[in-house]
């Protein structure tokens, strides 16, 4: 009996909160808020906040064309793989005190899983047989490599700070980090963590492939790159994955640096998480989008491996010396 209840409970985690349904609603809303804010900053009115929902449902109702040159199974399945990976990430990210799944090394799991949506996109693009997708996926790979180094450094800095505080050396468990913050206050209050938080804010638009780091999906030059051949529902799922990725990364930021703000009531925590995610989206994605032009791929690489990595490295060194 307890097994059944436990199974139902996990099913609820996966499907409702913090799994699929929460990801869908919160991610799409974040995307809508982002579009609205960018429009505001550009002196426009902007689409309604619910616009991503309209886009998604419209795409569900469109015809799906599979190009003759495409590898059909990979082409149709890769969007689902990407979305599934993102939902799994969301299950591992603690909502302040509450974690659906936890383990001793979930930061490393998340690090690997964050690659899967991009990889799914690369697979799908490669399977579509379009030359635009070819250009797009080579750029996407470079973008992943650029973002990965600073992201690992940021995660190491956090792991070292928490680890040395609780005496385990390096702490790779997000639930432990969350618990530590609930007791000792948010990590962002530490001076050593400030550069890491700034670096994380700069990584978010690069990981999600948002402006100005969207060379891989440049719609004006390479027809949205890997998505060039997608239409209908698979495209809608990719758009959804993009929205959920925004949610995953911003909630990862909340879990890493703002974990001490939790109230202990789950519904309130979920709401607070969403509000914080929206604020981080506004600061790191929308604001940067509004006043920058698209960077070239080598500029993205250079930027992440110098400026952002340096910020993360400073944080790591400070954490190593226990500041």
């Amino acid at each position, binding site marked *: 009996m307890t097994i059944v209840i436990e199974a139902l409970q996990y099913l609820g985690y996966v499907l409702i909160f913090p799994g699929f349904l929460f990801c869908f609603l919160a991610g799409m809303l974040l995307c809508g808020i982002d579009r609205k*804010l960018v*429009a*505001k*900053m*550009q*002196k*426009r*009115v902007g689409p309604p906040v619910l616009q991503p929902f309209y886009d998604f449902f419209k795409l569900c109702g469109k015809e799906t064309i599979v190009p003759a040159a495409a590898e059909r199974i990979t082409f149709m399945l890769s969007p689902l793989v990407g979305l599934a990976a993102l939902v799994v990430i969301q299950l591992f990210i603690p909502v302040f005190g509450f974690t659906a799944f936890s383990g001793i090394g979930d930061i490393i799991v998340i690090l690997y899983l964050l690659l899967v949506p991009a990889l799914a996109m690369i697979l799908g693009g490669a399977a579509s047989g379009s030359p635009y997708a070819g250009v797009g996926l080579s750029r996407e790979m470079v973008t992943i490599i650029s973002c990965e180094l600073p992201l690992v450094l940021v995660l190491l800095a956090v792991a070292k700070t928490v680890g040395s505080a609780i005496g385990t050396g390096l702490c790779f468990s997000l639930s432990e980090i969350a618990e530590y913050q609930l007791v000792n206050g948010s990590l962002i209050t530490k001076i050593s963590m400030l550069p890491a938080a700034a670096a994380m804010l700069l990584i978010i638009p690069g990981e999600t492939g948002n402006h100005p780091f969207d060379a891989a999906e440049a719609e004006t030059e390479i027809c949205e790159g890997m998505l060039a051949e997608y239409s209908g529902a698979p495209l809608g799922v990719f758009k959804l994955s993009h929205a959920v990725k925004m949610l995953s990364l911003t909630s990862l930021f909340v879990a890493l640096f703002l974990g001490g703000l939790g109230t202990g009531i789950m519904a309130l925590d979920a709401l607070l998480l969403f509000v914080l995610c929206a604020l981080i989206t506004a600061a790191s994605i929308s*604001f940067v989008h*509004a*006043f*920058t032009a698209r960077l070239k791929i080598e500029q993205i690489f250079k930027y992440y491996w110098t400026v952002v990595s340096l910020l993360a490295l400073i944080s790591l060194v400070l954490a190593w010396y226990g500041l």
Partner: protein
Amino acid sequence: MDFPFMKEALSQLFSKSSCAMYPAVPSEAAPGYRGRIIYHPERCIACGMCERVCSGNAITRTVEHLEEGQDKITLTFNLGSCTFCATCADFCAKQAIEFTGDYHMVATKEEDLLVSGSFIKAAPKKKAPAADKSQGCQAPASGGPTVKPRDDGKPVNDPARCVYCTLCARKCPVQALTVDRAAKTWTLDEDKCIACGSCAQACPKNCIII
């Protein structure tokens, strides 16, 4: 790195947008905007000048013969072929073509983009059949001139074809011509005339002979 628009983006976040909320708030075209054509058939004299100057071939004229020597003349303006240059309105001697500020020219069928009007005009009388006969095949009754040119290079009007559109009088550099539309008269002040030929060039009906 330099971000010149960073401050701008932040300040715009809290200020009003510069959108013209068009479908909700109707908007007027600027004065002088050339939109949908209005054609006044009651003013038209079917001189054909508009058709000739139209660069987009947007104007078609059809003549339908009615009883009692009357013609029903229909002018059709195809807005789907129009460049809205307003040359036709400029050349129209009778101001029968008017460009309005109405820019709502959206249609699902091509017929919705046609502006047309028709009027009934007395058919030109077949003048002086006797003269035609005497000249034989030199001057066909329909096309050729029915008056003889002067030898001093000054213009002569062919009343059989003249529609008294006054274009020749307007083009005359020395105001030697007086054309009265109501009285259907065409008079030349021979003292003023310098025999430049502008009137013959301007005539849409080719009825001025030099």
